């Protein structure tokens, strides 16, 4: 990374391409948040690479004035792995959607997280297939009526936070498009994280799945439903903090604050090695319905795949010396014919 911090204006981060999402799409807000964040991130833009798959969100790289690959459906984490491991000096960001990451690309997502490749994955979750005009997605709620499920979806949706934690992710967080400050804070944490970061961003699709996250954005309901996870702080929420999260027998539960001793209230610790509590927090909601945790669930240190690969290369060079072709082709033994 550059030694001298670089700062840009937001416009420096914008490419010359016209943004073509539907008017009112949550992607605009996220793009603005990311561009603002990147302008002040302190990394020169030639060292930033955006990689995406297919879907509405996947057009994202075209709008960033950085290096970018708009790849194929579901494969962005794999492409980004190749980018990251080939040049550890780059800041590599994946932009994906719920279909791209969790359906067609599920395999690549879990393995990139497991390996702790140094890539930051932003998954815009709108709980619908937008680019193909409105089929249910792997995060759509059961019973969801769409063009491909006129009688309601019969599928159990995935919980992306639970999935990422189960896949040995070292950084797991959730934000929501409308909350730019929360997004910026999480992006900063993700950027500073060594290894893979998985960030789910609830994103409203105003055309095919409008108001899916209303419980978390509507003035009337959001206070009651947003559980803000803040490292080192007691997890209370609701009007005047009248609700709290406690961990009983290892399971996170929501209680009335007045009913418990203050010492029992869960103090969030993103650095807890054991992922069980973070997992339990992820089970407080299964979708943006009712009280839903937002913020960083987990941020722990583990060797990154990217670094480990290069340290093995270094080690091999120290042990065997720089590779020489003349020696290589003779390494199985030779004989002379005169």
């Amino acid at each position, binding site marked *: 990374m550059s030694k001298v911090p670089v700062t840009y204006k937001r416009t420096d981060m914008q490419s010359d391409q016209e943004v073509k999402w539907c008017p009112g799409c949550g992607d605009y807000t996220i793009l603005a948040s990311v561009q603002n964040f990147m302008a002040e991130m302190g990394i020169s833009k030639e060292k930033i690479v955006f990689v995406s798959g297919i879907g509405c969100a996947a057009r994202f790289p075209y709008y960033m004035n950085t290096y970018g690959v708009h790849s194929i459906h579901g494969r962005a984490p794999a492409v980004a*792995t190749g980018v990251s491991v080939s040049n550890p000096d780059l800041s590599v960001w994946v932009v994906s959607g719920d279909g791209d990451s969790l359906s067609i690309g599920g395999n690549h997502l879990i393995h990139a997280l497991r390996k702790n490749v140094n890539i930051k994955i932003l998954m815009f979750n709108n709980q619908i297939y937008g680019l193909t005009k409105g089929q249910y997605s792997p995060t759509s709620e059961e019973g969801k009526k769409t063009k491909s499920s006129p009688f309601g979806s019969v599928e159990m949706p995935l919980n992306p936070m639970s999935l990422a934690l189960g896949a040995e992710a070292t950084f797991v967080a959730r934000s929501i498009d409308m909350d730019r400050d929360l997004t910026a804070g999480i992006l900063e944490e993700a950027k500073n994280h060594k290894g893979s970061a998985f960030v789910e961003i609830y994103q409203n699709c105003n055309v095919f799945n409008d108001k899916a996250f209303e419980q978390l954005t509507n003035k009337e309901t959001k206070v009651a439903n947003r559980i803000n996870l803040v490292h080192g702080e007691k997890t209370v929420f609701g009007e005047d903090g009248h609700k709290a999260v406690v961990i009983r027998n290892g399971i996170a539960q929501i209680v009335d604050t007045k009913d418990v001793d203050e010492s029992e209230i869960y103090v969030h610790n993103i650095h807890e090695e054991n992922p069980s509590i973070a997992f339990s927090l992820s089970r407080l909601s299964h979708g943006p319905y009712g009280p839903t945790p937002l913020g960083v669930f987990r941020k722990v240190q583990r060797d990154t795949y990217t670094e480990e690969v290069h340290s093995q290369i270094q080690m091999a060079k120290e042990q065997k010396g720089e590779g020489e072709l003349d020696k290589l082709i003779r390494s199985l033994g*030779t004989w002379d014919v005169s």
Partner: protein
Amino acid sequence: MSIENKTVESIPAITIRFAGDSGDGMQLVGTRFTDTSAVFGNDLATLPAFPAEIRAPQGTIAGVSSFQVQIADFDILTPGDNPDVLVAMNPAALKAHLHDLAPNGMLILNEDAFEEKNITKAGYKVDPRESGELDGYRVFQVPMEKLTKEALEEFDLPGRAVLRSKNMVALGLISWTFNRPLEDTENWINDKFSKLPEIAKANIKALKTGYNFGITVEAFHHTYVVEKASLPPGEYTNINGNIGLSWGLIAAAKKADLDLFYGSYPITPASDILHELSKHKNFNVITFQAEDEIAAAAASVGASFTGKLAVTGTSGPGLALKSETISLALSAELPLVIVNVQRGGPSTGLPTKPEQSDLMFALYGRHGESPLPVVAAKSPSHAFYAAYEAARIALKYMTPVILLSDNYVATGSEPWNLPDIETLNKLDTNIITKLNTEDGFLPFLRNVDTFARPWALPGTPGLEYRVGGLEKEEGTGNVSYDAANHQYMTDMRAWKISNIANDIDKLEIHGDESADTLVLGWGSTYGGITQAVNRLNEKGVKVASAHFVHLNPFPDNTLEVISKFKKVIIPELNTGQLLKLVREAFLVDARGINKVSGETFTAQELTDKIEAIINE
């Protein structure tokens, strides 16, 4: 060692086949005998054959593994047709291979394995040693297990470990019979078991026991020797195709001043390329064992985007999975080499058998109009050069290139006259570090000669650009849905590839140029075809051959070569794929010789079939 009545008969060539249970160590015995012969100075070629199962039920035909080697005092091209010597470690091995043994061939049996149980398991109703079916062969029964047990009595080893050394008894006996010293194998054993000295000693004892059995038993006093081959002068190593291909990739990266990235998912018979490259991290080689075939290809595309010589390797079924990703590299115009070590298909097919049935798939197995260059390795040592050539084209033309090998090239071995590394051509790339127009960077502004686009690498200030699978506008690379632009870009991608025809080796004619008949081949059938044509020419039959290394585009003199002949015969290990391509491209009434039996052509088989067509 002077043995009173030992005789040594000098013979020009011998083909030996070792056959036994897949746990009997036949591949090892074959490889050791091969290496010793290579060091001795013979020309040679090998053909391993093993079941897809790691340990099929013991004693059954399904579990038989074999290794054939031909050694010669002259330049040979194939591992031999019918073995002159068959070593059968059990009745199943005998049953599976006896039909190939040459008349009056030498048959060495491990007589301890011929118990009733094993005889029945092999599917014999009567003991084949008593049924008369071994008449016409020179049969030598050797109590290999008894010899091994007695020899290793002094070692404190469990019974199963003792019996595992019986392959060394067989190797020792063959070494005696063909006058090969044991030192090379002894050194190898000591090296291999340096941490288990007891095992090393036991194996050397078994090896010597087999050798001494030959000294003792009069039946083995007539021995043979194949003298050194008069190969072109040079320094040689014995190489198989997977290793040759791996080294070719490493060399190409080095000569292009790039690092090598190899993304792969384990698959037979390509996995050995992953194993080999993983050993050479000190060449800055990054090997990525991916979660699946698609990720292996996708990560390679990512690596290519950053400026690596990116390669993804697989076998047939894996190529199918990579198809969409290859199209991305093709559309984004990024260099990528895709290695396909072909095996029998379709589906899981015959994972350990050679076939050339992915040619059409290599050429056409993508959606959309998506031409790309295809290069094929024709022998184990040629795999080195084929890999180098595939990398050269990918880097120079900013395109994915499919490199075809097959199980026969990949696992077979031959002596390789080592090249002078200095003389290997440097490889050019299209890396760009500065703006290519006054107004800014145009990622799809092409080189006027090669039509290649510039390769801007992340980390280069001022060249930030985005590329993907959506159609791009010529020049700017911006997403474009414009009708005329799509027509132009489709045509341009095709021109770019067909233009490569001017930049590759011309098709050469081998054999009798004045003949009316041309035998046209590609890939691993090179040895068989060339030997068949040589034999026919020696017999006075007029015939020539030519062999494609480039399957797309064809060399620019192909029509000229084909036009010189009245008859074109195309032998292939498929049902006629090059045949269709040649008929379509050159409008000739070519004839096929086709086979998909999981075995390659023998030189004799081709000799007979070619002659029959000539005589029609």
